[in-house]
């Protein structure tokens, strides 16, 4: 399906015709978010009024068929600009509240937002999650202004997070994305982004809207697609991200299947791009950075290590299929070492993640089995990180993540060599 065929409802078509063109467009995908979306809409409205008072602005809510009155909540949400000391906006805020078509998921919601941005010839766009509790009007400026005034194509979020918050990002997605594409984007799967109208058109032209990207994995897809296509990329410091917990029934292994499956699938698509990249470059960070205490996180290292050890006892034959022999040998001493000495070193972890990527590429076993069998390994590495950083502040722990990233970059030739080789 081409970009021109992306369907919109007749009401949305009419509204788009009526608006004509816009400078800034903010999209909010939603599904049963009536509790939180009012706050998000008010923050976005205030942000647009305060920072883009002279621009033509549009807010789009792309809803997946909510049954709890989410679209009505969007429609009702208004902000009193006077109490925020914001002088009256010169151009009115247009709201488009539309259902999306296609496979249910955040990706399909984004597709509708991209399509509306394309038809309105939006110069700068931003998307924010509908379950955010910590969003402020400043987020809109930080996500849209680098595009509108600095000529960037893509703005990734940079959140203030607890050292044990976002462990999949810290131990896998960030080091891997950075080593592959050479750009130090700290939160590649953040969920809130800014992008140019040109990039939105590029996204629409990709034939991914009937795939898993439409359901999940849209965040890493957008980031990777932007980097791999040479878009100008930057980051914006947004402060803490506090939001409703994700689907409570989703378990860890399903989460890993979704995230790692998306990253590895993108590796297959962009191999010509990342194959020749060496090292990495810092990415411009906008916004005023600060450091405050964030919510404490309870961590049970014993249970993580026992999960890893059960994996080593029961899944060893499967791990031997998916990992290189040297990698498995490196894990064996962890079977009965003292708890405080338990460590999966950075170098071994980098090799291990590369082995799993290669096994995914070469389809050594059903891909879902491969990614699910990775769960105890991930828990072992998370336990290592917790043990190593117990007494450290979040910024000191960031230094450990930097070392891990370096290990990924140093061992990249190992990945390139194994990726290109046939199955062993």
């Amino acid at each position: 399906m081409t970009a021109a065929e992306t369907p919109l409802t007749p009401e949305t078509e009419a509204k788009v015709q009526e608006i004509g063109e816009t400078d800034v467009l903010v999209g909010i995908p939603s599904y049963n978010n009536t509790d939180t979306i009012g706050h998000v809409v008010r923050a976005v409205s205030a942000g647009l009024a305060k920072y883009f008072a002279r621009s033509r602005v549009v807010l789009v809510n792309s809803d997946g068929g909510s049954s709890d009155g989410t679209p009505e909540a969007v429609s009702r949400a208004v902000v009193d600009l006077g109490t925020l000391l914001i002088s009256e906006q010169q151009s009115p805020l247009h709201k488009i509240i539309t259902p999306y078509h296609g496979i249910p998921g955040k990706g399909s919601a984004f597709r509708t937002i991209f399509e509306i941005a394309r038809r309105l010839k939006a110069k700068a766009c931003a998307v924010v999650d509908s379950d955010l509790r910590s969003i402020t009007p400043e987020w809109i400026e930080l996500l849209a202004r680098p595009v509108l005034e600095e000529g960037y194509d893509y703005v990734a979020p940079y959140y203030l997070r607890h050292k044990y918050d976002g462990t999949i990002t810290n131990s896998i997605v960030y080091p891997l994305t950075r080593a592959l594409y050479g750009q130090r984007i700290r939160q590649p799967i953040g969920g809130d982004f800014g992008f140019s109208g040109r990039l939105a058109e590029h996204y629409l032209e990709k034939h991914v809207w009937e795939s898993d990207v439409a359901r999940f994995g849209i965040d890493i897809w957008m980031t990777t697609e932007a980097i791999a296509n040479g878009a100008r990329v930057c980051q914006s410091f947004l402060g803490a991200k506090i939001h409703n917990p994700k689907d409570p029934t989703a378990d860890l292994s399903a989460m890993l299947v979704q995230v790692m499956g998306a990253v590895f699938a993108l590796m297959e698509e962009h191999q010509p791009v990342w194959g020749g990249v060496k090292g990495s470059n810092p990415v411009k960070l906008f916004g005023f950075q600060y450091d405050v205490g964030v919510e404490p996180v309870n961590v049970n290292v014993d249970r993580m290590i026992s999960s890893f050890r059960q994996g080593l006892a029961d899944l060893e034959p499967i791990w031997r299929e998916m990992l290189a022999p040297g990698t498995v040998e490196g894990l064996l001493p962890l079977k009965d070492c003292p708890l405080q000495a338990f460590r999966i070193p950075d170098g071994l972890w980098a090799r291990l993640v590369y082995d799993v990527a290669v096994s995914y590429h070469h389809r050594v076993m059903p891909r879902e089995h491969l990614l699910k069998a990775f769960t105890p390994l991930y828990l072992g590495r998370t336990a290592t990180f917790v043990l190593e950083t117990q007494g450290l502040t979040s910024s000191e722990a960031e230094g450990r993540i930097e070392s891990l990233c370096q290990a990924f970059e140093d061992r990249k030739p190992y990945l390139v060599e194994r990726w290109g080789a046939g199955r062993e």
Partner: protein
Amino acid sequence: MKEFWEKALLGPLETLSRSVLSVLPNVLAMSIILLVGLAAAWSIGLVVERLLRVIGLDHLTNRLGVNAALTRGGVKADPSHLLGRTVYWLVVAFAVLAGLGALNLQPLNQFAQSFLAYLPRLFTATLILVAGYLLSNFVSQAVLIAAVNAGIPPARLVAACSRWGVQLVAVAMALEQLSIAQNIVVVGFGIMFGGIVMAAAIAFGLGAKDLAKEFLEQRLSNKSRDRAPDDLRHL
């Protein structure tokens, strides 16, 4: 004397030679069919083997765990070669049956017809066994990984049970297809399967009632099933 020679000696010889002459074309036809059949079997077997290698069957079966299973079972040949040889022997069997048919002997014809009628069942049963074996590998691997991720201690036992369960169903279906002791197989399988389910239910009810209670509570109260060992946010 002349009449004696003609009736007693030349007569039987003449009958015999007529019989031999009448059978000789059939024997000749059988020989030709056999020779052509053997040549066809050899070449078809070879072509099939090469074709399967070209389309990468061995890689596919390796991924599905078939090659490893064959090695464990003492079979050193790869699946392409095995299938090539299977086709070879099938064509040979057809050639032999066709050759015997050319002799036009009643008992042999009946045997050939029975054998040919049985072939589809044999083929279906083989397919069921192969599919059952592949499915059992897939299921047991999935169960093992899920059980380990769920922290169930006897994960390997659970996976082994699932493997044997699937293979048991496949064997029962194959025997039923071959019409071998159909009633015994169906009844035996029913008793065994029912017994296993009942034993599992009793074992679960008695040995894991707390686990069942916790599971149902989580389900009914819609609490998180996330097995994350704490309140880590992974993403």
